[in-house]
């Protein structure tokens, strides 16, 4: 489906009769079925991807088949209702969060207008509270006394195909960004609810290709992009050559090297596509300049983890490569690159799932001597923590004027902000690498930051209008600082952002670029024995690297 023109969509989000714009839906939400049509759903997973995942030890991805959400028959296995209800029971027993979140909501509505999907689509079921009610109604009906006695009177609903279709529609119109949970008086986290819904859907073979294909790639080749070891190495080698061409400094990097002090893992998108490539070039330049003894891995060549968007088992299995590779190579600790959901997994799940990492040492910067007590157990630190520490100790020379061509603002990625608390390290770095930068309005940054609209594996082209709608709150805040402060660059610490915000800016705010923070660090970095290339800037005059690492020479 062709993407709506900017003018049409701009009108539609304001004037379209929706709950977000002031209209009151005539029908009760329970009587409003989910209707699928081309453009409002992500394509189902390919048979061979589901079969591959299902064949892996410890994973359960049954019912591989050809099917489509817009057909009536979803070809569900016999007895699927029981599978779902048993699945709910199992998850209630495993997750206290699920029980609490099912029981405690008072429907105060504090979350209602906090969701970017609701603001962009106006669909009532995109209010976090209703997204949770889709599951809660079934929970009430089958797992609570009130629901068993009173049924619909107590807000209960039977598990039907209609309910399952709603689950599919709305658990894939949620990016697990946790913004609603900031505002909820009980901290009810829709990310948890969406995770449960998606897990339950996988039990009956309902999943999308844009998640399961990268996940199966990651399992087999080590990364989402499906880059085989030699290709992964080639890509990084190209970037290293580019850095050398631009800075005159030869990059010494290595792969799968035993005995390195540090294993470096970043999302594979950073070595695969613009503008992430420039972020990866920033890493290479920085590590070269400080002489870090580190290695890349082709086996653990993915920081991201699309298992997080499917189920616990797959998340654990994919994540386990990080520690396994660290152990095999005998490194002292791991540095992780810029990525949002990767850091949700690394910060809140990894040590629990795949630890203890007692074969490594507490991360200690070889340059500054700083011991990272905050990663004492997990042995993995964020590149922003590492870089901020270098800057604080004056161990790298930075020339902010080398970033004079950019006027950035900073986008807090959902997970580092709301599932980690990484907010001021990136800002500290920005303060030192650019002449000037500005914040977006306060209700759209830090813990209140808005998602790019395409996280959790929704970065797929067939739902572009949905993505542009969901990204509107983010784009709108960027537009505010573009109009007010001539911002021309949206910086972030997330690989999915680098891809999705680029589409979002091209649509809503053409002319505004997107970059990773480490790209700006690389731009500003003064390297030993550098011989910087000349290039033509936007004004047509020739100077040293006028566009930083993006300069064409």
């Amino acid at each position, binding site marked *: 489906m062709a993407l709506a023109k900017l003018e049409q969509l*701009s009108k539609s*989000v*304001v004037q379209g009769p929706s709950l*977000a714009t002031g209209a*009151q839906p005539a029908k009760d939400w329970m009587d409003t079925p989910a209707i699928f049509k081309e453009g409002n759903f992500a394509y189902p997973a390919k048979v061979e991807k589901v079969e591959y995942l299902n064949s892996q030890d*410890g994973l359960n991805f049954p019912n591989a088949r050809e099917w489509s959400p817009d057909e009536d028959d979803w070809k569900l296995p016999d007895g699927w209702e029981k599978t779902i209800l048993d699945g709910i029971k199992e998850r209630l027993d*495993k*997750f206290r969060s699920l*029980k*609490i979140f099912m029981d405690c909501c*008072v*429907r105060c*509505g*504090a979350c*209602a207008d906090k969701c970017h999907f609701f603001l962009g689509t106006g669909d009532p079921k995109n209010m976090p509270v209703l997204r949770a*009610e889709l599951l809660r109604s079934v929970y009430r009906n089958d797992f609570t*006394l*009130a629901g068993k006695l009173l049924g619909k009177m107590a*807000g209960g609903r039977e598990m039907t195909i209609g309910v399952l279709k709603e689950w599919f529609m709305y658990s894939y119109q949620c990016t697990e960004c*946790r913004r609603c949970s*900031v*505002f909820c*008086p009980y*901290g*009810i*986290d829709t990310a948890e609810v969406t995770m449960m819904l998606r897990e339950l859907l996988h039990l009956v073979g309902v999943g999308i290709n844009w998640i399961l294909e990268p996940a199966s790639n990651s*399992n087999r*080749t*080590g990364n989402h992009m499906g880059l085989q*070891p030699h290709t992964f190495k080639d890509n990084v080698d190209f970037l290293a050559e580019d850095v050398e061409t631009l800075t005159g400094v030869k990059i010494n990097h290595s*792969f*799968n*090297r035993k005995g390195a002090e540090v294993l470096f893992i970043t999302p594979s998108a950073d070595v695969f596509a613009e503008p992430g490539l420039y972020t990866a070039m920033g890493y290479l330049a920085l590590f070269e300049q400080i002489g870090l003894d580190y290695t890349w891995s*082709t086996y653990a060549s993915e920081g991201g983890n699309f298992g997080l968007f499917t189920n616990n*088992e797959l998340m*654990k*299995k994919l994540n386990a*490569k990080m520690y*396994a590779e660290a152990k095999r190579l005998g490194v002292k600790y791991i540095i992780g690159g810029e990525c949002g959901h990767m850091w949700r997994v690394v910060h*809140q799940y990894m040590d*629990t799932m795949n630890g203890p990492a007692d074969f490594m040492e507490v991360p200690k910067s070889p340059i500054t001597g*700083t011991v990272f007590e*905050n990663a*004492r*157990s997990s042995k993995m630190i964020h590149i922003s923590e590492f870089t901020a*520490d270098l800057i*604080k100790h004056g161990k790298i020379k930075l020339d902010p004027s080398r970033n004079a061509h950019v006027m950035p603002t900073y986008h807090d990625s959902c997970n580092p902000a*709301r*599932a*980690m*608390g990484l*907010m*001021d*390290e990136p800002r500290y770095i920005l303060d030192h690498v650019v002449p000037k930068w500005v914040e977006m*309005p306060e209700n759209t940054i830090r*813990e*209140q930051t808005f998602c790019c609209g395409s996280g959790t594996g929704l970065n797929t082209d067939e739902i572009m209008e949905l993505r542009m709608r969901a990204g*509107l709150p983010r784009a*709108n*805040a960027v537009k505010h600082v573009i109009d007010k402060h001539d911002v021309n660059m949206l910086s972030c610490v997330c690989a999915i952002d680098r891809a999705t915000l680029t589409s979002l800016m091209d649509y809503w705010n053409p002319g505004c670029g997107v970059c990773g923070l480490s790209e700006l660090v690389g731009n500003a970095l003064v390297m030993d024995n550098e011989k910087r290339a000349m290039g033509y800037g936007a004004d047509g005059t020739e100077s040293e690297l006028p566009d930083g690492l993006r300069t064409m020479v």
Partner: protein
Amino acid sequence: MKYAYSFLAVLALVVFAWLGSKIPGMQYLFGVAIPYLAIMIFLGGFVYRVVYWAKSPVPFSIPTTCGQGKSLDFIKQDKLDCPTKTSEVVARMFLEIFAFRSLFRNTKSEIHEGPKITYESSKWLWLFALIFHYSFLVVVIRHMRLFLNPVPEWLQFLDFMDAGAVLQIGSPLFYASSAGLVLGVVLLFGRRLVNRQVRYISLLNDYFPLFLIFGIASTGMLMRYVLRDNIDIITIKELLVGLVTLSPVISAKIGSIFYIHVFLVSTLLVYFPFSKLMHMGGVFMSPTRNMANDSRAKRHINPWNDPTIKPHSYAGYEDEFREFMVDAGIPVEKELPPKADEEQG
């Protein structure tokens, strides 16, 4: 129409208790048996629900971080919104439970031409909730004077302050908490009707407790401020102290309004553990609020973690790609076998 059903349900309860308490001999049922039963169901149900929650583990450390976490020395940690120590978690929980801090953050979004989305601070819900909950709390505590003999001094003081909060002369003194409770219910109900989003999400389960509490508050106030002739406070206190000491005495001098009030309270107690009102217990146990953000510093244990889930092994990976790896100069664990044609040659 959900609110109409809820209203009718509460009305039916009132009529039931009114008529029922008129039948000779039934006073014992409404004044003693039902309250005892209700208390038992409330306590039992409350404990059951909390135990039901507690039986499920918290497999992962999932606090919602609402501020800067603890990392480097020169980066200032937001100790309240991103706690690492137990004392900081307690402070966060205290403000959440006693000051409704998350509601204090509330904003209202509006979409204007452009499009332009605006976010304005909106503290109405926070204010209404505070008025309602604190008034209710004071009312409940204040009622303890009816169950305790002698009345402790602190309770007399609270009673004095509650009445003294409103400048007045004459008798009976009007309690600020009475007004607060009714006002709180009316405001929260009004919000459910006026706020289009909240109106759309509201269930019967949301209106019913509001009407029920309104019924409780209004019958209580009727008893205290209006229908006093019908009410003998001495006999009521005898009954209530008797209930507490397990030796209840029913007197004929108690009017129907009292039984209606007590029946509605009993209904609330029975309804409580099976409803959303359990948010009172749940707020203490929400993992996104009551956990420290220290999951990289301290290993959180998941009791059902499955050690048999292993990564796709490095050996398997190298077996599949060894040739490419060797060609590309990537170190391998096992070298390639000598090529067959070379052997022949």
